[in-house]
């Protein structure tokens, strides 16, 4: 008996991600959930801009490639057009928390019945490691070579905390994929976010703390440690909003 095999929720195209980048794990969790919930054949993935731009090659369902930051707006159109389909966005922190802030906040405010998978690795990966809206104070990046100076460029945006204040949003949780236990919890959260959509409960966003070994300048193993020691301090894990409580 196979206890672990590749999900049918992914195509067999090899990921283009760097060695040790946890995007691959998050892709797999989303894909497994789509397969397990039996919604793969009615799912529409909205790919964003950044490292995950090619996610339309990997999710084994229909897909639309959106402009930078616009995935929640594209998802809104697709979902309003096809309310019985499962529509989700897969976005990084640059895409969602900088250029796409308005689209994200307003999709949440409308309680748009979509699922947002938000991958936070505190850096712009695809363009080579620039400061992201989520980069940590003092974090060295290509565009903060002396460390993020909060007096000059401000503080990181805590997306889950921010969206927990948006009245319309249904479900907001932050998870991480730095160890097996957390990966399993992340999958549970992602499953809940999709189940919410199936149950027509509205906007769910799962923020997933992820690594970027290449642009962090660390080995894959050290990246996991850096996530544990630094990311989680700034971005504590947990459920930030749950309007489905009491529904069960």
């Amino acid at each position, binding site marked *: *008996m*196979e*206890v*672990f*095999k*590749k999900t049918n929720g*992914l195509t067999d195209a*090899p*990921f283009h*991600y*760097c*060695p*040790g*980048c*946890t*995007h*691959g*794990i998050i892709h*797999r969790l989303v894909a497994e959930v789509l397969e397990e919930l039996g919604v793969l054949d009615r799912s529409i993935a909205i790919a964003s801009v950044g490292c995950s731009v090619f996610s339309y090659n990997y999710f084994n369902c229909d897909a639309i490639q959106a402009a930078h930051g616009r995935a929640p707006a594209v998802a809104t159109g697709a979902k309003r057009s096809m309310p019985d389909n499962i529509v989700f966005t897969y976005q990084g922190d640059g895409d969602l928390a900088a250029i796409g802030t308005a689209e994200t906040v307003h999709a949440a405010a409308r309680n748009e019945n979509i699922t947002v998978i938000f991958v936070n690795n505190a850096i712009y990966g695809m363009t080579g490691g620039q400061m992201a809206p989520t980069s940590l104070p003092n974090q060295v990046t290509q565009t903060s070579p002396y460390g993020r100076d909060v007096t000059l460029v401000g503080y990181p945006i805590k997306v889950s905390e921010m969206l927990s204040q948006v009245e319309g949003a249904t479900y907001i949780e932050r998870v991480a994929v730095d*160890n*097996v236990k957390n*990966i*399993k919890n992340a999958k549970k959260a992602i499953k809940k976010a999709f189940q919410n959509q199936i149950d027509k409960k509205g906007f769910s966003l799962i923020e997933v703390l992820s690594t970027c*070994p290449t642009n962090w300048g660390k*080995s*894959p*193993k050290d990246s*996991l440690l850096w996530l544990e020691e630094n990311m989680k301090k700034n971005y504590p894990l947990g459920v930030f909003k749950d309007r489905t409580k009491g529904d069960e």
Partner: protein
Amino acid sequence: MAKVTFREERCKGCGLCEIACPKKIVVIAKDRINQKGYHPAIITDQDACIGCAFCATSCPDLVITVEK
């Protein structure tokens, strides 16, 4: 008895499986490289495998299949 197999050609040698393995039997083979040019992950003692699938769960590249 559990069995772990690797799609070696897809492995990028990141070693996340190595960290995850509770039995310390999944390791990166430093003595050779795969088609991509990475040191691939291998299992050193198949018999000692407990089939927990932690390695596969941690793998970002869908390299590993676990059977029991």
